[in-house]
């Protein structure tokens, strides 16, 4: 009898207990911390990640530094390294300035005077200051005065391209990226240096999202 009472009690509680509580996600927070931008992230998809940016600019830096046309001239050539002529034809959204700026700054540091970098991306700023100087609004400064801003000998161009593939039965996606970089002679139009960076990523979302 005692057992029966227990059973009835348990069953009653089981039947009347309802889904009544509310779940609170009380997972501990995570304080801000530095992560290695050269390593792949757990959260990344098949697009271009920070490790791809650092990897490809590091590779281009080494490749450019080994180029005799650019680096072994008696007179340091003037070059423009920015993202203005890097076109994104891929299916990945990317801030192209991440490539142009990182490459220019790394290259400038490594070249140590063997290349002269023309800041065409800031030419508006230079123009405004030159105007102020010539209008007499400000003095000439301590540097020399020139007829015009610096013209460049070479400029960086390139393309970001991708090819996507999807396995429709498993919904596994993969994306191949090919990023090309070329240094163009701004008089002749010839290519004096070129290199590429390529990688492919694949991923498959949890079945709950398929």
């Amino acid at each position: 009898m005692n057992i029966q009472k227990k059973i009835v009690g348990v069953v009653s509680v089981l039947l009347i207990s309802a889904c009544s509580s509310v779940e609170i996600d009380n997972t501990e927070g995570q304080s801000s911390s530095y992560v290695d931008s050269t390593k792949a992230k757990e959260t990344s998809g098949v697009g271009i990640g920070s490790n791809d940016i650092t990897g490809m600019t590091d590779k281009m830096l080494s490749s450019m530094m080994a180029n005799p046309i650019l680096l072994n001239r008696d007179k340091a050539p003037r070059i423009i390294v920015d993202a203005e002529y890097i076109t994104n034809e891929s299916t990945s959204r990317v801030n192209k300035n991440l490539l142009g700026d990182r490459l220019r700054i790394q290259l400038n540091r490594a070249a140590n005077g063997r290349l002269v970098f023309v800041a065409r991306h800031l030419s508006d700023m230079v123009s405004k200051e030159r105007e102020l100087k010539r209008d007499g609004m400000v003095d000439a400064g301590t540097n020399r005065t020139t007829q015009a801003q610096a013209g460049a000998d070479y400029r960086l161009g390139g393309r970001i391209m991708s090819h996507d593939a999807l396995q429709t039965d498993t919904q596994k996606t993969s994306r191949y990226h090919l990023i090309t970089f070329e240094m163009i002679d701004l008089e002749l139009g010839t290519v004096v240096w070129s290199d590429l960076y390529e990688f492919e990523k694949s991923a498959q979302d949890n079945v709950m999202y398929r």
Partner: protein
Amino acid sequence: MFKQLTSSISTLLTLILLFESALVCASGNDEVLKNMESGYEQFQSGGLKLSEQIFDQVLLNIETVFADSDSARKARSLWYSEDNKAFKGEPYERSMAYYYRGLLYLLNAEYGNARASFLGGLMQDAFAEEAQHRSDFASLMLLSAWSARLMGSDYLEKDGFDELLKFRPDFILPDATHNTLVVVETGAAPRKLADGIGHYELVYRKGKGLEDVAVKMTHKGALLDLYPMEDLYWQASTRGGRQVDRIVKGKAVFKSEQANFGSGLSKVANNALMVSELFEESSEIALVSGVLSLVGVAQMAVATKVDARVDTRYWSNLPAMLHVQTIKLEQDTKALDFSFIDDFDDPITELNQTTKVVWDKNGNGLVWLRVE
């Protein structure tokens, strides 16, 4: 022996009770859904910078592959409904997030990223189960081809427009002189509903709002038709089944079988109890029937806790239709006038409005309007 058996059953029930009490009514993370809706609100109200940031966050979440996550694991289990998973939206919703981000890129004259966004949206549509409806989001094809034109890539533009004509052969491609894209959104978002016993079947219904309207714009006194390029209800409802639907259906079948089995055992127990007094071993038969009854109740208790409901959360401030057109405008054009015609060819004059042309730094225009 019977006492031992009864005790074991009692223990089992207690364990079920403890397990059941650990289950809670929870719903998954709605951050992406909220961001989709607030990103659109910012876009509509002109908070473009904020809208960019919000949609970037949305796309980051969409593109992040949840190979395994607690919420997805939970939603996959028998005891939790599908909406316990973190919301990423169905393909048509994800595609629309890429669409808005693409428009924002166009406004900033970032044509490459605009094209990448529109193509990203098109790829979300590629996940459709039904092959004939895979990647048929024609408006995204037009927008990606238009972006390719603005970025100066003839071959990508041609590829894009060639693809578009496969799906919309009657669409007249933009003239080479056109410099402005016009997009008008009408109607209300498609709705998601749970259908079937146990609400395990996801069905779509048209949004409640403006339906079947034609859009016209006035330029230099001429009335020009906009092309009704996309029907979001069509996009939502023609996708076919999802892989997750098989899991949800499996839960529903399990739930039904458990309930039926439990109910059957209880009936057997009742019948045994009724006839037990006819036999000498009536007390033993009564005990067996009690045990059977308990097992039946346990089975039914399990069945009640199986949650086979599908996820019916949806992006509620999407439109029903996208109407598009391209046009050549003078750079000093400030605005265009729009009028609307109902399905009886009668003008809906109360909807008439003037919308400004937004020019980017390269002199390309974008006109965007939402009418609900």
